């Protein structure tokens, strides 16, 4: 039972750590499939987390915080959209700019409003998302094997975690089974085909960018309202980039996106769990190496383990009618 307990601990923390990655990577999936590359997932998530922290504290409501996160993140998305869709600017530059602006602006505003040295005030229970205990979790705990798995792994997460995992099949369904998805994928491959079919390329891309904003906002709210009790500066800590790596690793497909995010989440969980415990055979591994693991894996995987990842053909290219 010791091993089961260990497994459950790791699995549970994998799920928690993967949640923001899944949300952010799906956000990236929507815009990139529509042909707008977005390196600004990080910034949008951070902006969302900040807005959630502020509003949840002021309103003492997690839902208000979530809403604020989504609004701020969508606004940032629209900035990226305006720069790269309407003004046909460079999508990488625009994304990087958003990351920088958010990283700086949140610190300045946070300090100006709350004066707590790079954080928003700690949130009380009611202003955060609570863990949800699924029905019968306690009664079934006694059932061998399945009981603990249900009680510890399936049950007991925050609403946003369930939402993140539900978004995986939902995204798949939207992309592959709806008109919106068909057009969205088409606009990322050959916007000319969409334009000649009488559909507005710009409006399609804006809608994709808005989807991205919503999901990034939720990811941000998860960080400050569920995983933590408030916003701290730089709390995304590169999660936006890891999500981007997972997206490429998954070749821009929803279910592999989830698996890739779980893998990255697992490495993170593993690193946290074993950063001070000696491993069998290897002995004690420096903390820094453990913490670097997810990033090392990102480099290794992207450097060639995944085969050829072909991005959407029109990705990164602003649409200009041929003349």
């Amino acid at each position, binding site marked *: 039972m010791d091993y089961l307990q260990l497994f459950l601990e790791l699995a549970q923390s994998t799920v928690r750590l993967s949640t923001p990655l899944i949300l952010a990577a799906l956000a990236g999936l929507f815009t990139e499939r529509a042909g707008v590359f977005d390196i600004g997932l990080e910034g949008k998530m951070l902006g969302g987390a900040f807005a959630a922290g502020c509003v949840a504290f002021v309103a003492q409501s997690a839902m208000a915080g979530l809403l604020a996160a989504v609004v701020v993140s969508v606004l940032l998305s629209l900035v990226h959209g305006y720069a790269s869709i309407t003004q046909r600017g460079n999508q990488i530059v625009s994304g990087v700019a958003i990351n920088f602006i958010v990283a700086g602006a949140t610190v300045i505003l946070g300090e100006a409003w709350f004066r707590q040295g790079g954080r928003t005030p700690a949130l009380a229970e009611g202003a955060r998302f609570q863990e949800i205990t699924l029905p019968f979790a306690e009664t079934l705990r006694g059932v061998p094997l399945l009981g603990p798995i249900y009680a510890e792994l399936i049950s007991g997460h925050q609403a946003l975690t369930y939402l993140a995992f539900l978004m995986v099949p939902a995204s798949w369904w939207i992309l592959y089974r709806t008109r919106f998805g068909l057009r969205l994928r088409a606009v990322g491959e050959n916007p*000319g085909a969409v334009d*000649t079919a*009488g559909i507005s390329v710009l409006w399609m891309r804006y809608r994709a960018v808005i989807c991205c904003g919503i999901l990034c906002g939720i990811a941000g709210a998860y960080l400050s309202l569920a995983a933590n009790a408030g916003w701290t500066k730089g709390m995304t800590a590169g999660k936006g980039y890891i999500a981007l790596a997972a997206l490429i690793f998954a070749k821009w497909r929803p279910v592999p996106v989830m698996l890739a995010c779980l893998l990255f989440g697992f490495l993170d969980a593993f690193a946290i769990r074993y950063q001070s415990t000696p491993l069998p055979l290897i002995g004690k591994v420096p903390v820094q190496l453990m913490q670097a693991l997810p990033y090392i894996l990102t480099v290794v995987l992207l450097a060639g383990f995944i085969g050829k990842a072909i991005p959407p053909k029109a990705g990164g290219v602003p649409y200009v009618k041929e003349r």
Partner: protein
Amino acid sequence: MGELAIELKGIDKSFGLVHANKDINLKVRKGTIHGIIGENGAGKSTLMSILYGFYQADRGEILVDGRPIDIRDPNTAISAGIGMVHQHFMLVENFTVLENVMLGAEESWILNAGITKARSELKRLEKEYALEVDPDAVIEELPVGLQQRVEILKALYRKADILILDEPTGVLTPAEADHLFRILGQLKAQGKTVILITHKLREIMAITDEVSVMRRGEMVATRQTNKTSVEELAELMVGRRVLLRVEKGEARPGAVKLSVKDLTVRDSRGVTMVDDVSFDLRAGEIVGIAGVAGNGQSELLEAIAGIRRAVAGSVELNGRAIDVTGHADPAELRQRGLAHVPEDRHHVGLVLKFEESENAILGYHDDPKYRKGLLLDIDAIRADAEDNIRKYDIRPPNARLKTANFSGGNQQKIVLAREMERDPDVLIIGQPTRGVDVGAIEFIHRRIIEMRDQGKAVLLVSVELDEIRALSDRILVMFAGRVVGEREPDASEGEIGLLMAGVEGPKEAAQ
């Protein structure tokens, strides 16, 4: 034949300083195939894009079925019954045929219902117009001819009565083009109106009922096809008399300059593209290689030019071997007298973002005469480039202009000038006139004959059978990587066509 499907009145369109369409009037009769012909840049595509709502005219009126309509976007055009097959296909390459046909006409926000309907509708259209395509095939795996069929199906699925085709045969093999023409005939028989934009006179004569000629943004004439001639149309297009037949004297072949023996080339997937090919090329002759695109001609050229490694065989240039199975060095081959005009000038022949003068020395930049110490001698380069511009009548005559800003014909002249002016012994040319307008074709053909008359050995690859027959002194026909026959240039088109299709002629069969 009285009713008009389309009438354009006084259409005018400018892009900045370029006056693309000047006061265009056009009448297209219902149930006919109407050709619109003109050189590259004459304004044909712009006019049709206006009709399809892709651009808006600055002035003028469009009448469809006698009713004036304001076509502001492709949607209006589609609902007015106008469909368009673009020159560069507007298909999503990793989508299936079905998804492409549905895109923009999906019925409801959930795809399922639309899919069922599209599937049965496609089946009906396939039967009605003999347009067989597997609805579940992915576009990028289909040959070009079938992709084009999908474009036509897209238009028909949207209930188009008027179908515009923009340079539809530019990417097709002769057989595919013939098939397309049969489809267009079928459409006409069913009462549809077809507008065919092209710069190929032969197509106009073969299939249209009426033809309108555009030149420099103006509509210069409309003729009934059976009351006009190729000569008249060519003259109307270019604005002066054009020599369509190339005048050339008897060839006087000399010593063997290029000798290819048992050459075998595979592509990156390991498929044999050139299979055991042998031939000799002599000084003072043009050997043409005919064949449907994709039968190994491109790979043959590339192997000889040293840019694709062969797996077996040998090639001798001026009696000395080229290391075709090892590391042949294109730069060294140039020095040894081999000039290469590649098939794909945009990707292999030119750097489009470079100035004309920079492209004029591409591959010859090591020549000491362009060197000044460690640096390039820009003055010498420009002087040479300007020389070429004069000799080859490259327009606009500006050596400092970006190459992308020249028309297809002039770009091709830049490449030809570069390769021909080095006094090579052997000249290998791929698709000399692809995407080149009539006026320039005449010039390029004359230059190729001149090279031959100067005693150069010329190897010519072209998918235009007419061109091969007009220029070559001997014709080799390639099919599935093999040379399946050699013919004199006066062999009939049918005879060569059969060889190209892989049906062996009586001579070979008897052996």
